[in-house]
């Protein structure tokens, strides 16, 4: 394997990978480096690829200009509520599908799967009308409007059911012998042993909710209750904001999901591929 031709081909592979990686990494590099550049550095033409001076004040101004700190909190509340509730509703439903007798189980499961086929954009208008008729687009009630439609999702149920079905029968039998009830079995035995699947669903729900755009856009009338994603795009719309400020805001909005992708990759992969392998 260590012939000179294979060493040469490895070098070629490295070179190709690095060349391919440059455009992939560039937008991230641009956001980070642009966020600490001085406005004059970034506004020069052609733009500088390296800062001549470092200015971390952009982050402070980004948090001040638009209520970005407040919108961070809004996104955290929105994402927290949706992630926790969707995990709870999915765990319960998946448990019923995997372990309990049920009337019309096949039809019921099909009903869950049908919800996955309806594109959210095709039903977003009536959902908007419903939520605004309920008055959930004003003040703190906006949190309800942002989260209610997403408190349950069939994807989590589907993935967790797959995982529960692989649960070792012997462990379940032993629990039954000890007279363990359903909730006790679920909470004390099944969930601790299903942590990877729970984490996969949790990370997936967190990322999709944190990154939502269309729904929070049409819902938020009040700057105080807009989510971070909307705040960041408003930074871009505001004529007054400098590119350095925008990039600082983008970097701040990006951090939580960036950390997840770098450190939680195996959970993400598990969640992503559940649908790919029959």
């Amino acid at each position, binding site marked *: 394997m260590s012939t000179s031709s294979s060493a040469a081909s490895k070098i070629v592979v490295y070179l190709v990978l690095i060349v391919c990686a440059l455009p992939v990494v560039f937008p991230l590099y641009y956001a980070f480096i642009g966020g600490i550049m001085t406005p004059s550095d970034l506004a020069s033409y052609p733009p500088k690829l390296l800062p001549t001076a470092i200015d971390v004040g952009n982050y402070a101004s980004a948090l001040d200009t638009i209520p970005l700190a407040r919108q961070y909190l809004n996104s955290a509340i929105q994402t927290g509520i949706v992630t926790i509730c969707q995990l709870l509703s999915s765990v319960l439903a998946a448990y019923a599908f995997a372990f309990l007798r049920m009337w019309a189980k096949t039809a019921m499961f099909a009903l869950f799967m049908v919800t996955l086929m309806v594109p959210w954009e*095709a039903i977003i208008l009536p959902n908007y009308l419903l939520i605004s008729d309920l008055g959930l687009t004003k003040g703190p009630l906006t949190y309800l409007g942002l989260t209610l439609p997403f408190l349950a999702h069939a994807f989590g149920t589907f993935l967790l059911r797959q995982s529960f079905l692989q649960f070792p029968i012997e462990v379940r039998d032993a629990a039954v012998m000890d007279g363990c009830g359903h909730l006790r079995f679920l909470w004390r035995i099944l969930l601790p042993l299903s942590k990877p699947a729970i984490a996969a669903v949790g990370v997936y729900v967190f990322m999709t909710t944190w990154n939502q755009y269309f729904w929070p856009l049409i819902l938020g009338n009040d700057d105080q209750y807009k989510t971070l994603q909307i705040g960041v795009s408003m930074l871009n719309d505001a004529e007054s904001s400098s590119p350095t400020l925008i990039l600082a805001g983008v970097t701040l909005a990006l951090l939580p999901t960036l950390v997840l992708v770098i450190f939680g990759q195996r959970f993400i992969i598990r969640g992503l591929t559940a649908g790919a392998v029959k």
Partner: protein
Amino acid sequence: MEARTIRQRGPTGERRLSLLYLAPSLIIFAVFVFYPLGRTFYLSTMGTDIIGRANKFVGLDNFAGMFSDPGFFKALGTTALFALFTVVPAIVGALAVVLLLESRISGQRMFRTVFALPFAFSVATASVIFALIYNPAVGMANGILSHVGVDRIGWLTEPDLALISISITTVWMTLGYNVLVLSAGVGAIPAEVVEAARLDGATGWRLHSRITVPMLSPQLFFLIVISTIHALQSFGQIHILTKGGPDGATSTLVYWIYEKAFSYGSSDFGTASAAAIVLLVVVLACTGIQFGVLERRVHYR
């Protein structure tokens, strides 16, 4: 499935309990999926007042109005082009990267993480960054090109170019996701299969075209279906980068729906709902066709 039951209650009690466990999901689906689905059909037959309230039955007038609007067909065409420009390049690009990563090199995990990075970006963060990159005055895209003597390009203001610029952004965004899915697929290929092929003398391109790619067919099929659905539903990057312009050149079906319903003084929820039904039909038809045409060629293990 019956065998997996904890036999403590009677069968009826257990069936009631299962309904209780399903209830939270069923209630949310009823209120926020099935009811809105029905109401979309209802609204598509109704005229609406200036704030979007349904006020009179108009039958199929909304559909007739929509189908006689050249802007609607233009949006359909733009949607198809956008899907074409994004789905295949993002999958082929990710496949190439993943196969390169399979060359038994060190640093494989690090490279995979690098290529997965775009997955961390939301549509808003990615689009805002690209808005600056494309900025004609201070943007990096023109800045870098200026070094090789290319004049400033209006990435988002040239009607012929704007959709391509949005597609580049979208391909970049989707690449991370596709790399992660395909990497997981490669990781799941049984080592014996690859070793057996290597013993038979298959290496490099031959190994990939005969073994790796066919073994990845479930993931590739999944990506084709999912990316097509995502492309048909794209909204954020268009809203942030071009607002459908210049002159409607980047207005896709979902953006057209948004403008009908929410742009200044429009509130035409009737026509928007009619278009939403078209969206539903297009998405279901595309998925159905892909299952019909492609799935039989998928090699499930």
